[in-house]
């Protein structure tokens, strides 16, 4: 190849016949695996395009031999080394859109497309899924008869059985009796509103009265009653809450989150989680200042909540 280029200044013309030949080869190979007629078709394509290609190459050789006598074309003037812009050949007189500019634009453009085609799906794969399909179904936490009135029960359940153990959560659930003929429950999440540490109940945990219920799909729900809860405290940075989940001491920026609940066929179901600024009143009469669910550490309902204007879909 090198000697060819050295001896003959004129290179063979670009030709598409090899492409057709390659298509024929592929077709034949695929046919070996898939079906025999394809082999025949591939073979025919190979023969046709191979013949055309050979004719082209042979013709180019003959033409090059006759063109060897032509004097070499004039070379461009030398480019000054320190000027990068002039490293490209200056446009010929009369050219409005020089070939070099087109090639430059095409290279950068195609490079950008390649970059985008690889990066966008990959980075999107990393970033987009955490924001999709984050809703969750209801969780069955046992018959309401298991929840004695006026006492908190430490209830441990699987938020999403498909995810398994990693979705295990704990809630402090208190049966408040009836409010206008409907059962009222206080369901408080045990994740501290400061930075998410597990909050501990300030009461006598009665392990001897622990119970295990099963949901319709067989997952376990553990219920452990706690006597005399006077507060909830967080062991990480000293946060404290009252039995309604209101923040009483330490760095938590709002009250403890709560779960919505519903009752069907005598069983308690936990629904969406929501955030709470504060709760006025106690038990069934409590008025809850509720907000959409926020992550721990994010303010709601006060001047610092403007720091979080756009919230990811959850």
């Amino acid at each position, binding site marked *: 190849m090198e000697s060819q280029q050295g001896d003959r200044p004129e290179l063979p013309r670009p030709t598409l016949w090899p492409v057709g030949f390659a298509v024929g080869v592929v077709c034949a190979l695929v046919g070996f695996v898939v079906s025999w007629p394809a082999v025949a078709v591939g073979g025919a394509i190979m023969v046709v395009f191979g013949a055309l290609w050979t004719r082209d190459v042979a013709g180019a050789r003959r033409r090059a031999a006759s063109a060897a006598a032509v004097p070499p074309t004039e070379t461009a003037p030398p480019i000054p080394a320190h000027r990068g812009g002039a490293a490209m050949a200056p446009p010929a007189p009369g050219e409005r859109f020089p070939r070099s500019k087109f090639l430059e634009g095409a290279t950068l453009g195609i490079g950008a497309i390649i970059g985008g085609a690889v990066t966008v799906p990959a980075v999107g794969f990393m970033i987009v899924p955490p924001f999709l399909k984050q809703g969750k179904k209801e969780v069955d936490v046992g018959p309401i008869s298991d929840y004695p009135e006026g006492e908190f029960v430490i209830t441990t359940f699987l938020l999403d059985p498909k995810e398994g153990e990693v979705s295990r959560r704990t809630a402090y659930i208190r049966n408040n009796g009836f409010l206008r003929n409907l059962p009222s429950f206080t369901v408080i999440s045990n994740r501290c509103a400061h930075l998410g540490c597990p909050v501990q109940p300030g009461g006598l945990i009665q392990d001897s009265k622990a119970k295990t219920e099963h949901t319709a799909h067989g997952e376990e729900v553990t219920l452990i009653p706690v006597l005399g809860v006077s507060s909830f405290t967080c062991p990480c940075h000293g946060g404290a809450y009252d039995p309604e989940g209101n923040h009483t001491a330490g760095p938590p920026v709002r009250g403890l989150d709560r779960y919505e609940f519903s009752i069907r066929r005598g069983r308690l179901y936990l629904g969406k989680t929501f955030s709470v600024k504060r709760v006025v009143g106690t038990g069934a009469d409590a008025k809850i200042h509720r907000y959409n669910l926020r992550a721990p550490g994010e303010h709601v309902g006060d001047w610092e909540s403007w720091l*979080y204007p756009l919230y990811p879909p959850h």
Partner: protein
Amino acid sequence: MAASARRKQLQATVLYPLDWLEERSGLVGAVRYFLFRKVPGDTNWFHTLGSATLTAFLVQAITGVILAMYYKPDPNSAYESIQHISNDVWGGWLVRGMHRWGASVFIILMFFHMARVFLFGAYKYPRELNWIIGVLLLTLGMLEGFTGYLLPWDETAYWATVVGININGTAPFLGPWLSSILNGGASIGADTLSRFYSLHMLVLPGAIFGLIGLHLYLVIRLGVTSPPWSKEAAGADWLPEPEEPKPPRTGLVQPVPRGK
């Protein structure tokens, strides 16, 4: 001592592959330049902290790669795979222990190295870029520690990560989005472990290796600073120009020439 013909032949045999490599790549010359370049004569033990940090990082890289052959990054099997490594696999307890304590040693050495560079004033012209790269390396190193801490999937790992991600979430404006991306969802799930594993094994080490390469290139190019208290500090314009060497004493005894 005249080199015998046999010795010459031996030398030629050894040098031949090196010359072959050098002619085709220039690598041998680069290694020779790195090894035999001049450094200030008064470099002391404080200057070893940088290479010590690199050694600690290489220990982490090697033990980490080997641990990855036995570790399973799934919440259901991560904890058990670590127990398997520690109890059943030959040498597993040693590799795991080296990786865990190597992390602490790496971070301590980074802080000491940073303190040394600061006190020597080696962040000043023309080494500002190197300092910035170094601070980046410090941040990335601590992020390595943070992401790696989750991998054993025990209580300390899980809860430290919950708090760490929520701390990120308190940043204004983009905080909630960043913590969702780290979590791989609304809260820590199975995806979080895979995500942290990928960050810990691929993204962060790749970035750290690249930045270390740049860091070392700049050290070689810009040179190492002398200790600022040294009497022979290189480039020190506060020291008087070296005086003319005194002519040797006349007399019977010739003084031994100083300085080698």
